[in-house]
């Protein structure tokens, strides 16, 4: 799909708009003739009747032009705004269908610029082309043709000059397109630095590195300014050069005309007429710069949008009846290897394990050992490079994404919340959730009591990305968001790190009431020890698996972790006991 194909539905509207524009243009061309007639036949003959009649005709066709002009702009804006809407819709829908791996291909800020600024550019050029863009080319062609009729030999100058102009215009447009592409890129950068600053505003303020931040912004801002200036100045070169060329043509015609006259090859009136057409064409040309600018900018923008539209979509399977069934929740990894990028080291190497439905798995491992990658393979956010991931003995690749993900509750490490009330944020996991279900989920996530302490309770507004909540609150809210869906598989990615032992125990106990398989990434042995299976990962490899007791006897690393944590625990208990 490309931007051009999105214009198709508006073909009829466009044709009507052009016809209306032609009517308007005709009136414009006819009215001077009428005017001349009023003078010649009415005023000069002292014929008031003719003056009145023709005057009324003039007013009549003016109204006609007015009506078609207004209808034209009405249609132009209708098409323009709808096209903009369609493009935005398609690009946004495309982003929704992109696989995880492609989402990082462009920075968020670039997606944003493309969806707003670039769309606006295209939209603008469409209504411009419906309203005015055709006027100047038409005027130029008409003018030339008329001039040829009047005196072919003299008008030959135009025939030579105009193709030259066209070549020149194409050249400018091509160049301008490249320039504008870099303008939009620079705009991306401005957007990006701006966005970073807004996201990190607390830190920016706390560190008070104002001049540093300002320098960063000034750099991208200056780049944008310089590129824009260069581009516009280049494009603005067009008009003066075109004018110069055309005006020289007129000078030439005068000179040549004078020569022709002395040989009797031309009438005075013919030369006057041709000069007249010449000046009209020149006037029409000055409008062209503006149009060219808009077109090359729109071309740059539509290329950027096409870039997104042509990205590869997430491969999804058709919904089959068998796949639509509710999951039970058994998971199996068979020799799974995975890497994020071709040339990167494996994030997961040759991993195998299996879990029965309803069991609990704890995953331990140091930072960067592949725990999160493992999680992301289950809802098929990424796909294994080698080996297979099975759910209920079916390859995950055979599940439609929606069917699969709807039954999985995922709580990521970083709790991403959206602007809106607490209630809305929990209901985000399940649109049709009732208030009871929401409260139940909140209670199970051990956040209900905290919510009730807020003045507005469930209607408390969560700021963007949850700025007004503490880390622990955010974590528990995003757990509630997963629980409200009553998932068959629950994935907790270190989501209890900010909870104390007792709350965590309560939480895990509440989750036990859910009919689901739970995988939990954790740093705490106390959390892990009750799991049916513990996986110990190191640099993408599974170095130990088994129950707490098994690992205590077989894995030295596990023992080490156990001892270090146990020691701390005992110290804590000892200090408490001292009191």
């Amino acid at each position: 799909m490309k931007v051009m194909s999105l214009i198709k539905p508006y073909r009829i509207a466009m044709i009507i708009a052009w016809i209306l524009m032609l009517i308007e243009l005709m009136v414009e061309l006819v009215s001077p003739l009428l005017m001349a007639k009023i003078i010649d036949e009415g005023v000069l003959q002292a014929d008031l009747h003719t003056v009145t009649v023709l005057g009324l005709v003039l007013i009549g066709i003016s109204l006609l032009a007015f009506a078609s002009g207004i209808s034209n702009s009405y249609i132009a804006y209708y098409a323009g705004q709808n096209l903009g809407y369609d493009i935005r819709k398609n690009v946004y829908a495309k982003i929704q269908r992109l696989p995880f791996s492609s989402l990082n291909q462009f920075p968020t800020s670039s997606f944003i610029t493309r969806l707003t600024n670039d769309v606006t550019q295209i939209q603008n050029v469409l209504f411009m082309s419906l309203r005015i863009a055709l006027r100047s080319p038409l005027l130029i062609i008409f003018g030339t043709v008329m001039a040829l009729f009047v005196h072919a030999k003299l008008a030959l100058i135009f025939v030579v000059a105009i193709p030259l102009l066209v070549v020149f215009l194409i050249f400018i447009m091509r160049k301008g397109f490249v320039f504008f592409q870099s303008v939009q890129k620079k705009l991306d950068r401005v957007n990006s630095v701006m966005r970073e600053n807004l996201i990190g505003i607390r830190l920016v303020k706390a560190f008070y590195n104002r001049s540093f931040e300002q320098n960063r912004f000034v750099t991208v801002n200056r780049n944008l300014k310089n590129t824009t200036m260069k581009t516009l100045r280049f494009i603005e070169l067009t008009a003066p050069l075109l004018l110069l060329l055309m005006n020289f043509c007129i000078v030439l015609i005068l000179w040549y005309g004078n020569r022709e006259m002395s040989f009797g090859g031309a009438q005075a009136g013919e030369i006057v007429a041709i000069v007249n057409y010449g000046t009209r064409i020149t006037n029409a040309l000055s409008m062209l710069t503006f149009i060219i600018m808009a077109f090359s900018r729109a071309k740059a923008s539509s290329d950027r949008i096409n870039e997104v539209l042509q990205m590869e979509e997430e491969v999804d399977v058709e919904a089959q009846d068998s796949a639509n069934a509710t999951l039970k929740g058994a998971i199996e990894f068979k020799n799974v290897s995975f890497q994020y990028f071709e040339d990167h080291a494996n994030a997961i190497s040759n991993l195998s394990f299996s879990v029965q439905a309803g069991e609990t798995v704890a995953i331990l491992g140091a930072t960067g050992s592949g725990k999160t990658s493992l999680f992301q393979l289950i809802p098929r956010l990424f796909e294994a490079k080698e080996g297979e991931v099975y759910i209920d003995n079916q390859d995950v690749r055979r599940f439609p994404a929606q069917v699969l993900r709807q039954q999985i509750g995922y709580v990521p490490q970083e709790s991403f919340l959206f602007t809106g009330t607490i209630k809305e944020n929990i209901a985000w996991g399940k649109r049709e959730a009732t208030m009871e279900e929401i409260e139940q989920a909140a209670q199970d996530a051990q956040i209900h009591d905290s919510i009730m302490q807020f003045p507005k309770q469930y209607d408390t507004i969560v700021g963007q990305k949850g700025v007004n909540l503490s880390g622990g609150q955010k974590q528990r809210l995003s757990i509630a968001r997963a629980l409200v869906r009553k998932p068959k598989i629950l994935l907790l990615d270190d989501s209890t790190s900010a909870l104390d032992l007792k709350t965590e125990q309560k939480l895990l106990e509440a989750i036990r009431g859910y009919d689901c398989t739970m995988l939990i990434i954790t740093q705490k042995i106390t959390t892990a020890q009750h799991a049916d299976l513990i996986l110990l990962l190191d640099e993408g490899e599974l170095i130990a698996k088994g129950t707490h007791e098994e690992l205590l006897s077989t894995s030295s690393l596990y023992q080490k972790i156990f001892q270090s944590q146990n020691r701390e625990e005992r110290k804590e208990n000892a200090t408490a006991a001292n009191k």
Partner: protein
Amino acid sequence: MPLQRINNKKTIEQTDGKNVSFDTVKRLWMELSNKKGLLICVLLLVLINALLGIAGPFLIGKAIDQFIYEKVSSGLIPLLVGLASVYFFYSLTTFLQNYWMIGIAQETVFSMRKRLFEHFQSLPISFFDKRQHGELMSRVTNDMDNVSSTLNSSVIQVFSSVLTLLGTISVMVYLSPLLTLITLIIVPLMFYGMKWITKRTSKLFKKQQRYLGDLNGFIEETVSGQKIIKTFSQESYVMDEFLEKSTNLRKAGYWAQTYSGFIPKLMNMLNNLGFAIIAFAGGIFAIHDIVTIGVMVAFTEYARQFTRPLNDLANQFNTLLSAIAGAERVFDILDMNIEENDEADASDVNAFKGKVEFTNVSFSYEKDGNTITDANFLVSPGETVALVGPTGAGKSTIINLLSRFYEPNQGTITIDGISIQQMTRKSLRRAMGFVLQDVFLFEGTIRENIRYGRLNATDEEVIEAAKQANAHKFISRLPNGYDTMLSQDGSGISQGQKQLLSIARAILRDPSILILDEATSNIDTVTEIKIQEALQRLMKNRTTFVIAHRLNTIQHANQILVLQAGKIIEKGNHETLLTKRGFYFSLYNNGEKEVG
């Protein structure tokens, strides 16, 4: 139950009341006139350009009269050379006026963007909590872009139109005051029509820009959270909401432009009407010998010329109005109150010992009931203070007051006996180091991100800090080491590693006062122990405030402040507080170790 609709509606309606303001145009003009010298040059060029524009047709006319009708050739060449040079200079001035104007316009846009950015940095934190990032970004890009495209072309257009208008009217008055008067009849009509339309469209254009900002905000938020959307397979839901916002924009944009699209058409019609009136009245006058036919014919030509500049202006109307709407949104931000400026007698303070004292400090946020009431405490240099209490008790507020993100309503806060209001914010914050809950890394190398703690640190210092934070090992293992680029959301490294970087950053800063906000929650046990050691080292000889979320991490604090509902209800160290058997005791024993 769409998210965020409630607050957005509010902001949109709030500002709808205002009318298009002449003030905005005036302010834009003021912005431009910062480049007075060049601007005058451009205006002069416009004048010359207009004169040359008139000279051209005049010379053509002369050439036709003298050399075409008269069929003589001598003297033609000099005239044509003259004409050619007029055209040459015409093109030259056209180019130069555009060239300089683009410069002026882009410089202006540059400086407005810059000021907007700087202003963002000076606005109080509360400003950002209420607004969507994307909406603010829209002002910097989309709104400024509208201003930019208008300044590029419209200024020259307006000037040359006004010049042509004045010139034409004077010639018309000279030819026949009576006919001029009749021609000018349509002028009030034009202005009335323009006013009628502008009144409607300016609101719509503002709405359009606002909806665009709104949409931008939505896009920013959802694309940032795209992974969550996918994981929860909520694509169709966000799509629906996107379409709703997009429809709003389409509607506003559609009506704004359709209305303003009337203007050129209206002008055209009035133009033709004026034409007819002149023909009609002129005809009658000519018949009655009030004017000569020649004057009348000339007049119709001038009437045409007279309306052309108006027409040009009308054609620019769309861009002009949306630029004004854009500029207004930018000025709205620039007009917002910043964090108060440093007091006149504020001075830079270097080298704190780190004695912090709160005396009778009370504070309330504007609306929230989130208050601090009569806080009193004293922290000796090098001590570690833990702030404990349920969410909303005021722990973060204490830190916000100490770092002067907010000013207390009552009471004084001193460091080393000096009121913090007598220090510049810069020197105050320079002395403080933060490890915040949300690790923020910007797009750049790891080295740059650590160096953010102290911009003039050498590479060796950066590495040393990384070593102390136990980040050096993982950094060295990365293919590009310290030069590894972090993408904007810091992806590519794990959450724990981000935390290590943020600690390294604080270590590098070498602050007198350290603020730790849940610094160690996401690091695996092995690293956590090492980090604790590093932090212990770092905290030594430094006044440290720990916003405690887990009670077991703060037992070694010299002082624990227990807050509840904005009041410090208990004070003391772990042991004394436990023996008190008060709130802390119950918190500790009820296992409420996670607080806030």
